C-alpha cells in the first residue's frame, strides 16, 4: 500500500514541477505575433498613428491599408473601436479628434473595385 502511495505522490509532485516549469519558469514564447494580438492600448495607438498621418495625407485608401494589418474587420470599425477606447482611456482631445476624423472618413470611403482589362 505504501508503495502505491509513494508512486502516486511522485507522479503528483512531478506534475506540479512540470506545470511550474512550463507555466512559470519556461512558458511558451510567442515572438512572432500578428498585430491583432496586440494589447488594446497599442492597437489604439497604431490607429492614432494612422489618423495622424491621414491628417496630412488625406488618403483614406492608404489609411485603410494601414489599418488592415490590425485584422479583417472593416477599417471604419477598427477606427471606431479605437475611438471608443481612446475616449474611455482619456486620450487628449486632439488625438480623439484625429481618430474621429479618420473614422468618419473611412465610414464614407468606398474602395475602388479592381476591374480587369478586357
Amino acid at each position: 500500500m505504501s508503495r502505491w502511495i509513494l508512486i502516486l505522490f511522485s507522479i503528483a509532485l512531478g506534475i506540479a514541477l512540470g506545470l511550474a516549469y512550463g507555466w512559470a519558469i519556461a512558458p511558451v514564447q510567442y515572438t512572432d505575433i500578428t498585430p491583432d494580438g496586440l494589447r488594446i492600448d497599442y492597437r489604439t495607438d497604431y490607429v492614432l498613428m494612422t489618423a495622424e498621418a491621414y491628417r496630412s495625407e488625406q488618403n483614406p485608401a492608404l489609411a485603410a491599408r494601414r489599418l488592415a494589418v490590425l485584422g479583417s474587420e472593416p477599417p471604419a470599425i477598427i477606427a471606431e473601436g479605437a475611438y471608443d477606447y481612446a475616449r474611455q482611456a482619456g486620450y487628449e482631445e486632439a488625438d480623439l479628434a484625429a481618430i474621429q476624423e479618420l473614422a468618419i472618413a473611412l465610414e464614407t470611403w468606398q474602395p475602388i473595385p479592381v476591374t480587369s482589362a478586357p
Partner: protein
Amino acid sequence: MKTTRTILEGVISLILGFGLGLTYAWVISPVKFVDAEPQALRADFKDHFRSAISAAYASNGDLERARARLALLNDPDPAQALSAQAQRMLASGASPESVQQVALLASALQGQAAAEVPTQTPTDTAIPTEKPGNTPTSAPGETPPTVEVQATNTSIPEITSTPRPTLTPTATLGAPYQLVGQDTICEPDLAEGLLQVYVTTASRKQVPGAEIIVTWNNGEEHIFTGLKPEINHGYADYLMAPEVIYSIRMADGGAPASGLSAPTCTSTEGEAYLGGLRITFQQP
C-alpha cells in the same frame, strides 16, 4: 534491494509526472499572450509599425512621440532599424513617399539632420569627413563608350533661405536643387565606380529623404538620401558600371548632371582602376 527498487519507482513516477505536467503546460493549456506588446510582433509587422510611426511623424513633427513609439519595438538602435527598413522598402519597390518618411525619421533620430555642413566657398563641394562604405545601393549592367568626366563647379545664386515649420529639412519644398559640385574621386579604398551624391539646403544643411533619379542608356534607378546616416544625412550613392554614361537629377526638378561615367584612375603602383564621382546638389 527492495529500497533500491522503491527509489527507482519513485524517480520514474516523478519523471512521468513531470512529463505529464509539461505536456499540459506547453501543449494542452499553454500560457496565452493575448495582450502582447509591439516588441513581440513578427518582423514584417514591425516594419508596418515603423512605417506608421514615420508617417505620423511626417505629419505631426513630434519627434519625442515618435521616439517613444519606436521604443516599444525594443530595437537596439531605432535609427539603424529605420535606415535598414528604408533600404528594404526601396529594394521591394515601396512608394517613394513611404521610403522618404522612414528615412526622414531615421535622420531626425540621429539628431543631425539639421546639422550644418562645414562652411565652404560657394563653388566648393560639401564633403563629409566620413568615408562612404563599399556597399552602394545598386548597379546596372551596360557598356557604352567611356567619357572622361571633368570636375566642374557651378556658382551658387544668392541664398534665399526659406523658413520651415518642421524640425527636419525635407526635399519636397523650396526651390529646385542646383548642381553645385561635380568632382572626380580617385581613392582606392572606395568601391570602384562609386557615384556619391550629396544634397543640401541653401544654408548647407544635409537633406535626408531626397529622391534622386539616375538614368543611363536604357535604364533608370531611383535612390534616396538619408539611408546611410552614418556617412551623411544628405548622402546617397550608386555603383556605376564601367563605360556607361549616366545622368542624374533631383526628382523635384532642377538641372541634371549629365555625361557622367566612372573615371579611370591610377594607383601609386601604376595600376589602373575605376574611380568615383562626387556630385553635390544644393537649393539656391
